[in-house]
């Protein structure tokens, strides 16, 4: 269960951080988001990642928690990346 929570938080975190970048905002929304929203996404994304780390460390201790966090962040960033590629491919083919 702690793995699922951590993975969901990491995906949400990287999702937020990805949408806070200029390139992805243009790819997904077709325009740059207001600065306040971008900051908000960045902070929310970072907070979700910290929360994932915290949830793992509380349950597993620092040693195992950090190892698991590293694995979940790698997997989550890959999932977010694949989703963004899929989205832009779908979007470009339907345009």
């Amino acid at each position, binding site marked *: 269960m702690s*793995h699922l929570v951590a993975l969901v938080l990491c995906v949400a975190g990287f999702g937020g*951080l*990805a949408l806070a*970048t200029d*390139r*992805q905002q243009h790819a997904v929304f077709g325009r740059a988001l207001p600065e306040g929203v971008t900051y908000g996404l960045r902070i929310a994304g970072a907070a979700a990642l910290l929360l994932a780390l915290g949830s793992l460390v509380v349950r597993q201790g620092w*040693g*195992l928690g950090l*190892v*698991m966090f*590293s*694995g*979940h*962040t*790698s*997997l989550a*960033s*890959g999932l*977010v*990346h694949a989703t*963004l*590629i899929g989205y*832009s*491919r779908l979007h*470009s083919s339907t345009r």
Partner: protein
Amino acid sequence: MSRRTPDEEPRLTGRGIRQSMSDLHSWAGLLCGWILYAMFLTGTVSYFKDELSQWMRPELPYQAQVPDQAAVAQRVADELGTLVPGSPQWSLRLPDARNNSVYAFWRSPARSADGRGFGEGQFDPATGRKVASRDTLGGDFFFRFHFQFHYMSALWGRWIAGVAAMFMLVAIVSGVITHKKIFTDFFTFRWGKGQRSWLDAHNAFSVFGLPFHLMITYTGLVTLMAMYVPWGERAAIKTPAERQQLSAELSVFIQPGRPSGQPAPLASVEDMVRQAQARWGRDNVGRVTAVHPGDAAARVAVSRGEAGRLSMSPQIMEFEGTTGRLLAVRESVGPAAEVRGVLYGLHLGRFSDAVTRWLYFLVSFGGTAMVGTGLVMWTVKRRQKLPDPSRPYLGFRLVERLNIAAIAGLSIAMAAFLWANRLLPLELPRRADWEIHVFFIVWASALAHAILRPAKGAWVEQLWTAAALLALVPLLNAVTTQRPLWRSLAQGDWIFAGTDLLCLALAALHAVLALRTARYRPSPRAAGRARGGPVAGGKLIEEGA
């Protein structure tokens, strides 16, 4: 000169160091790239080596529950007393959640006919007898190949692996310096842009797993550090007593002492393991090691399992062999040994629960893809600069063909290893060796095929072959064993079902790569440029030479 996009515009400041690092990255990555790819892929698979070993010994029944380790230890200890009486030392790895057999290693009382002073074997936990299972090295073959290769002395193999790992470390550090927009381009992927797409894919595989890639390369070197840099140890450890103390810090080691010469039966091993179970948990006993069993001076060490603890440093309970009296409990080592134990543990990941093991596997698989995309990119990048792409120079052809054999060919060879496990006659002498010979014969054939065929054709054919061999593994397993996929799924046997399903998933991956490669046609712009000189980089594959 081609026009640059804003992304490619070099900054004047810092270009010197980045350019040097880029060159260093390219060449450090290439020169050992094929070895590194093989080390990465076989290492990745080794995270499931115990599961693979179970799949490769289908005669051993599915283990729904871990048997009582104490009772099993007694059974196998009794059997060893009959099998190798007078052995000065034996050691058992008990069954656990990932192993359904007991691995035993023993020193022979006298040198055997083949000149070896030791023996080893797998034992059935239920009967204590040697398992009546096909002769195979199982998943241990990939594990051993991963750091010492084959057909050469282990020493040479480990030196080669060490040099390759050092190149990898250089490639990682220089790659990080070269990649100037590591955060800005974190989620960037430019589809269908030839070399750009390859670079983005290589960056993604590298950056997403960067902590793992750095850790695994560095800790890989640490696992063999005593061999690579022995001088500190040599200077500090001089007497036999100091050497024994060092061994005790690093491994399950008990002071061997001298045998008394007075025969005395070993006390109940079961009781000793029970005490360990009470301390560390029912299924969390790792090994039982006995020194001078059958002698009045016998000692027995029971060690803690690896689940749930990062460090590989030994934790043992030491017993007097003839009485079963607890002599000592060692659950900690010195700070330096503990650092080594943690780094070693991080590399092997044996502490992992099932999810963490999958994370290790997936991120390590990403590392394999990082090396693979890097190797292919070397040719993609240089193809643009070829005066005549249909007649590349020798070095280019060499890299191109080695890439095919190292990447697609290795997949075929690894799948062939599984096929050999199921198809070689059970009574074949030295059967385990022949499974390995098949692996290398198939891999060498893949290299010959890559040399003889046009490059694109060779990629496509080899990728399809790998896809077919992998896709048919579940069918082969269903035909040659009593444990087909549907039965494994119904029984909840995730060792067999997982292996079959993973083969299917990998087959799908190879099929997608084969399809994309076969469908690739250079864009008119790229083709036009090819006629006039440089050609844009392709998809996975270079055009047929």
